[in-house]
């Protein structure tokens, strides 16, 4: 095919190609400029001693805003809470998903298909909708305002997608190596732990990071299920900048936003370098 087309690439068509590239570049740069405005605000305001709500070049660069928020009360406790909450839930999600994916990927059973269909169906349910009944249920069974209750719910809400993704990654690991291990007398569990999971390392990393990022940014779940201020993760405590402190210190709000967002952005960069841009979509958007 390509060879039949090659002679037709005249200088005129190369020029057209060049023009088209310029047009595409221009279009993308306009979009980038529009998208970057809110981001520019947060970066500039965090460094601005007199931050306001509009993008402007600071009249002096200062780290005072960061200084002011890097206290246990404002930053460290909420971030630690976030870490406990999301770390715990992510660990639970990853372990349960890896265990569940193994038989789904390795053994044939009449139950696989219905189970996977259910999981896929649950993947796309609007979790927001069930937060009111979850609250009511948690009050009834005394799980309200507990870290572990919230961790369990977080893990459950992330599990369908995690199982689905994990199973797809696991399908990519050839079976022969495992069969050899079985012949040598390894149990299923041993072969999962020693052979399958190490071979699908990037897949496990994707599931883990993706779950963590989703939970780190989630506002509604901890907002509903946790009540004590000491237990609030950063996604909820950031609200305090508005309501309870009277005058809004926009510079500090911006500084906090940056501190709070940095971990997930770094994690995303880490994982997307390794696996290409559309990593998270591998399982969900086939077709």
């Amino acid at each position, binding site marked *: 095919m390509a060879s039949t087309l090659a002679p037709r690439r005249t200088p005129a068509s190369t020029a057209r190609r060049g023009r088209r590239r310029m047009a595409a570049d221009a279009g993308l740069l306009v979009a980038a400029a529009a998208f970057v405005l809110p981001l520019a605000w947060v970066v500039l305001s965090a460094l601005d001693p007199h931050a306001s709500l509009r993008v402007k070049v600071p009249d002096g660069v200062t780290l005072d805003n960061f200084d002011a928020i890097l206290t246990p009360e404002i930053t460290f406790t909420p971030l630690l809470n976030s870490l406990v909450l999301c770390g715990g839930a992510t660990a639970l999600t990853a372990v349960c998903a890896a265990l569940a994916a193994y038989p789904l990927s390795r053994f044939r059973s009449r139950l696989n298909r219905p189970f996977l269909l259910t999981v896929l169906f649950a993947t796309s349910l609007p979790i927001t909708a069930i937060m009111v009944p979850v609250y009511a249920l948690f009050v009834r069974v005394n799980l309200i305002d507990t870290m572990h209750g919230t961790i369990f719910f977080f893990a459950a809400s992330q599990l369908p997608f995690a199982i689905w993704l994990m199973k797809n990654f696991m399908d990519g690991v050839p079976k022969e190596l495992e069969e050899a291990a079985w012949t040598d007398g390894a149990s299923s569990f041993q072969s999962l732990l020693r052979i399958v999971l190490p071979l699908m390392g990037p897949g496990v990393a994707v599931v883990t990071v993706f779950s963590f990022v989703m939970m780190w940014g989630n506002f509604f779940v901890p907002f509903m299920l946790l009540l004590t201020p000491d237990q609030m993760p950063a996604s909820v405590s950031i609200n305090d900048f508005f309501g309870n402190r009277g005058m809004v210190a926009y510079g500090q709000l911006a500084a906090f936003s940056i501190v709070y967002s940095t971990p997930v952005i770094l994690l995303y960069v880490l994982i997307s370098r390794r696996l290409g841009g559309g990593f998270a*979509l591998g399982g969900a958007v*086939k*077709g």
Partner: protein
Amino acid sequence: MTATAPRHAGPGVRREPASPAASGGRAGTVRRSLFRALPVSPAVVLLLLFLAGPIGYCVVIAFTDLQLTGQAESSFVGFENFTRAFRDEAFLNAVWLTLVFTVLSSLIGQNTLGLALASLMQRASKPVRTLTGGIVVTAWVLPEVVAGFLLYAFFRREGTLNAILDWLRLPSQNWLFTLPILAVSFANVWRGTAFSMLVYSAALNEIPKEVTEAAEVDGASGWRRMWHITLPMIRRSIGTNLMLNTLQTLSVFGLIWVMTRGGPSGKSQTLPLFMYEQAFQNSLIGYGTAVALLLLLIGSLFSVVYLRLLRTEF
């Protein structure tokens, strides 16, 4: 379109290996099945207790007059919550706003812009592609509440948008007050477009170059190629992307909550915010749950369509 994960080979090819748990006889088979199902059980327990449980509970309390305070016992009220909803103007307003929000931000905004960015990226130079992609994806990765604040700052009376409009000598206004639903829809486009962009980039990359080049040689213009060749070839991606965008958008809460709290006077109150207000500000858990159930039903409907779209995939 090929899936990322390999699918099962034909039935004859995929044979069962001799697993360590294998043993003869019917009882052995049952025992083996149970043994094999064992690793699934932690996930199943979690899902049943914390996902299926609340959904079941949702169905039950939607039919009661459960309230947050005072009342120890609730009683069964049948469809009262639902008939009440359809007579409640605030509810109908929320349904309408949810529709506007979803159509504007998801169907039109994220989807079209995502496709436009993805197809521009096919032709753009690498540095521009990387830069734009990075910025758009950052907006997507940011925590919900942070995204909400950034766009709150952008749309406020003294915010960036009005600064730009002033500079262009165009009339500025208090967007969050006059057109809150438009502002939150734009916010959702800002935050959610990356997803469509990534989906469509992946889809466009899978179209063989020969096909588009042949059309180009035959003299088909850019729009015609898009309409007659590219779009039909990625229609499955379009379907699944629309479905997932819609579901995402249906359950947006934090973004709107931070920007407007659903106000002023309900002008940006979509169903999730209406549900929250009824259940917690008005203490009507039963009523709020009925609304939640309706939202869940709409979501399930989309979810089923999504499954149908993926049907042949596994």
